[in-house]
């Protein structure tokens, strides 16, 4: 392979990573549940794209697997699953965050800064794109923030998934070829199972509590 190609690759990857970050921030301010799910699908698509690019430019076949699995799982299956659940339970669309959008926007700005600070010492290590690690950490932090800024069970699941995206991004960004395939597969299936379990629990909670509001889940004290 020759240099301009890898130059191009890293350009693309940086671009996509930035896109993922933007989507994350959109999710922070976005008020509608279904839109959130679609945004997540889009984010995952970008992740898959990054993986594909790596696989293409470094012709590392097993990373195609990662890309494919991500597309199948995170772009189609999980959003579909969540959508179905939302429809089946007629969850009202409002997400009802704890903080209003401007404040959360401000916070997330702070997180982004922190992410870059944490990542700076390691820029030398990333050989693809610039500051993808920073993006990954920011995804983690903002995902975290999403988790405790949302009241609905489903949205917490969604936030968790964005954190997962962050991890995968870090994985591909830092390690060129992603993790060994076994691990990749394991992680992938774990995520799937996790979401199913979560879905199951959400369903049960829904039918016992007649609500999706996790702030109602506060009987266990002391």
């Amino acid at each position: 392979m020759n240099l301009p190609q890898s130059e191009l690759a890293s350009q693309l990857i940086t671009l996509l990573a930035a896109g993922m970050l933007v989507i994350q921030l959109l999710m922070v301010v976005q008020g509608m549940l279904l839109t959130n799910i679609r945004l997540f699908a889009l984010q995952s698509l970008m992740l898959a794209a990054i993986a594909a690019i790596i696989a293409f430019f470094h012709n590392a076949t097993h990373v195609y697997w990662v890309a494919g699995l991500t597309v199948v799982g995170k772009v189609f299956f999980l959003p579909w699953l969540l959508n179905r659940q939302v429809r089946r339970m007629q969850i009202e669309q409002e997400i009802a965050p704890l903080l209003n959008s401007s404040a959360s926007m401000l916070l997330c700005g702070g997180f982004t800064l922190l992410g870059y600070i944490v990542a700076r010492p390691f820029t030398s290590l990333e050989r693809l794109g610039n500051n993808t690690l920073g993006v990954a950490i920011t995804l983690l932090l903002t995902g975290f923030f999403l988790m405790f800024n949302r009241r609905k069970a489903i949205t917490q699941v969604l936030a968790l998934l964005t954190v997962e995206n962050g991890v995968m991004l870090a994985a591909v960004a830092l390690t060129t070829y992603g993790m060994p395939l076994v691990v990749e597969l394991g992680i992938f299936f774990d995520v799937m199972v996790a979401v199913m379990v979560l879905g199951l629990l959400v369903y049960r909670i829904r039918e016992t509590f007649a609500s999706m509001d996790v702030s109602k889940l506060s009987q266990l004290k002391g």
Partner: protein
Amino acid sequence: MDQLSSNLLLQIALCAYCAGVVGSLLAMRRERIANLVGFGCSTVAAVSGIGAALLALTVEAAPGAAPFELWPSLIPYLQLKIKLDPLGAFFLLIVSVLGLALSLYSFGYVRGFYGRKNVGVLAAFYNALLLATTLVFTAANAFFFLIAWEIMALTAYCLVSFEHEKTETRNAGVLFFIMSHIGTGCLILGFLLLFQAAGGQSPGDYSFDTFRALGATMSPGRRDAAFLLFLFGFGVKAGIVPLHIWLPEAHPVAPSNVSALLSGVIIKTGIYGLTRVLFDFMGTPPNWWGVTVLTIGTISAVLGVLYALMEHDLKRLLAYHSIENIGIILMGLGAALMFLHTNHPVLAALALIAGLYHTINHAVFKALLFLGAGAVLHATHTRDMEKMGGLIKRMPKTAFFFLIGAVAISALPPLNGFVSEWLTYQSLLQGFGTTDSLVRLMFPLSGAMLALTGALAAACFVKAFGITFLAQPRSEQAAQAHEVSPTMLLGMGLLTGACVFLGLFPTTFLALLGPLTQQLIGQPLPAYLVQADGWVLGSAKAMGGTVSTLGIALMGICLLPIPLVLWLFFGRRTRVRIGPTWDCGLRGLTPQMEYTATGFSKPIRMIFKALFRPRREVQREYDYSPYFAKTLRFESHIEEAFVTRLYRPLNRTILRLSRRMRALQAGSIQAYLIYIFITLLLLLLFAL
């Protein structure tokens, strides 16, 4: 002589105790067998324990018994090593003598539990407690000592809450165990400090041999810290003021044979620990140690007896007297420490002997008194003195034994209490000359306080004996009381004998303490202690005071004829009539007219009002004039200032803070997520 070494006897005793535990548990369902097996084993064990102690104090004193190991332990630093040195042997003697008497007593006493409670369990715990105590006195490794100490506390807790159906019993048990555990915590820290000073590397660094005179090598700060920790830890067990609050709660609620054991031996483990640590490990003490111990002793003695006077629950009264006597013992130890500081080994030996002699004396007569109280409880089913009276006619033998105990604990000649307090007085008196600093005033002043204590104790036991045994029965169950079973009497008789022996033949007994002072102070018995070939007990110097209880007793017997001579002279024709007591012309006296226990101690309550702060409620109903009341109801409570001012607020504060903490776990998952998030952020900043 090889086949009868002290170690062999000690091992026999340990095995017998274990057999007692196992056997009585196995025979749990058949209570009679359990009773026989359990207390039989403890009797055997106690006898061989006495043998071992005597051998170790006499024959094998010079070389000292060889240490032996129970079994190799799996923990580094822990050696299950046992060594019977003079100090341990002395305390082993105490526990074994009491063990013997109490076991004999228990045969009869626990029959009262048949059908109600499980005698097997009682016997098992009783044996376990004796076993643990024996190990405490003989362990030669701090780690092992702590294990025995904890097991002792645990079994004591189980015995205290044996009759756990009553709420007061459960609370008393919990209070006891918590206090004792806090004490143990301090002990652990103290021993760890020593361990550190010993180097803290080789497994041997935990054995008492390495601790010996270690204090000299420690930095003053650590040494003082260790001293305070030990004083606190052992003080809780010994029940010194203000760490005593558990004692009057826990001792009364236990079965009486156990109460006797607790008051007689278990609190003495605190004294043992203090002696062991302060005289054996800590090296030459700074002056303030001795001053502290002496002061604490004085305060405990006075407060203990004052609170005892206010009680009309017989067993609580005795429990408070334990605090008083612990105080007296500590006076001796404190004086000894001060003498060590000023380098007067002879006086130190005298003071130490005084303290230790009072230790065994108190063990004997307090156990005797508790057994007497137990007999009364057994006969009348109440501990409230106001419901007793006239028992001397219904249970004469018990009454006699109790009287002996009462005379002994009131430090009246010629019994043993007097002897040990006499020794204490002597050491305090001669302490005055040992130093020029103002500190010397401590000696006579604490001597005066000791006098006050003795006089108050006498008052208290006039009340205890007089109200309980004399005059008319104040209640039905007292009138129905009956003498207790022969084995119980035997147990009490044994202790009575011990009281008399320790009282009349102190010089014979003190000979046993020679090796002990030699070991702890490097000083044999003071030369003038035993005078006129054993007839007279002297003090530490040539022209010092002397006393001979035996002589006093014999002389008294010689003087008895004088009144008889007088009868022969004048009153040959006189007659004796039995008549009613003068009742001011009323129609006969009723028990209501007798002086009550509360009334008896009223003057003292008035005098020390500032201390007791009694809450009194008087309700009188009258028609036209308050002076002609129809009904009159009077009640007065006394709560210890330490409980109301110190412990309750402390407890309340801790619980309030803990409840505040619970707000952290408020149930909101968002909050939980935020905790994790903040932790992560902080760590990231820390890692950068």
